[in-house]
């Protein structure tokens, strides 16, 4: 069984941005995403009650180039004003061609 190494990009953000973020990562070539509701605290925000807004955790498996482009777009468009964080990990997948 051959595994391919790809990038898993995780974005944690206020869920008011969900639709925008999904459109953005799709436009940069992501073939899919997985999304969960989350709570959290950070330097700008405390979102531990729904009334304070909810976080979403958006994960997408992409090639290294797409991962870089996603981070670059986030930096440009959101990081300055919005409470939003993002990180990248290496993962091994089977059927790598599905994601690139």
């Amino acid at each position: 069984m051959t595994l391919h190494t790809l990038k898993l990009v995780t974005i944690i953000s206020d869920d008011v941005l969900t639709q925008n973020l999904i459109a953005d990562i799709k436009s940069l070539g992501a073939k899919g995403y997985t999304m969960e509701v989350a709570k959290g605290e950070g330097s700008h925000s405390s979102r531990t009650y729904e009334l304070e807004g909810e976080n979403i955790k958006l994960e997408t498996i992409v090639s290294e180039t797409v991962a870089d482009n996603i981070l670059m777009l986030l930096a440009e468009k959101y990081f300055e004003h919005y409470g939003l964080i993002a990180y990248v990990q290496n993962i091994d997948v089977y059927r790598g061609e599905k994601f690139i």
Partner: protein
Amino acid sequence: MDVFSALTSSLLSPMVLAFLLGIVATLIRSDLKYPDGLYLTLTIYLLFAIGFKGGYKLSLIPLNEFIVPAIAGLFLGLLIPVWSFFLLKKFGKFNSTNAAAIAAHYGSVSAVTFGEAIAFLDLLHIKYEAYMPALLAIMEIPGIMAALLIAKKYTSNTTSLKSIVHELFTNKGTVLLIGGLIIGFLSGSKGYDQVSPLFDGLFRGILTLFLLEIGLVTGKKIRDLRKVGLFLILFGILMPLIHATLAIIIGKFIGLSPGGCMIFGVLAASASYIAAPAAVRIAIPDANPTYYLTAALVITFPFNVTVGLPLYYSIAQLFF
């Protein structure tokens, strides 16, 4: 009914007591918390129910009665953020971003405070105009709109006008209130009878559960009172009083009943904590929630539903 017994029935309603229970629960660090999604579920119910009942009532009266009050509501909604913004900036020393964000909350209205006002009047068997829920729906948007435009003018905020308008007219508060209004209006009394056990019969009970959750959040945010400064605390108590009085006078002027004046006062006095925060989080993301949420939720909301309701009703009575 005198002010004192009105105050007692406002303070000892299950809704207000549940709100206090929530605060206490958080302060004693209880593990009571609502599951994810319950707050949103209750919000959807309340907004739709308020709209629906309002639409039904509106279907029973001639629509033209509503024109003048609607214009008065619009007008007040657009102006409140203007003076609020300048007061907050000039005397409160808030930067433009935060001042505009807070102004948006006071320009808009609180559906839950409205629900409490209705429950208060119903309990005292005081009548009010049937179009009041429609007035609530109309007054939700303009205040936020005005404040976002101010933010655009006075800050480096770059959100486009188009996306502001879109956000305001499509946010869930608007869709549920206005959608509910239209559905209640169109489906008439046949439709009303089919669904009123849910949307009318359970309304106050569900409001009680909702206020328990609001109390839990408020309890957590009470310590933020120290962070926001004395000015905002005074602002959060005095401005509602001023706005209520102003609205009651306008109400009297345009011919509302005492109950109607009081509700118009409550609408003007109330600060939104459903529609406004959502809009601000998108359109003025740099604004600090500690200011606007504490003001709307921890200061103005409790003031309104405890002391405010009987007080505004007494003020309204002065004019009749």
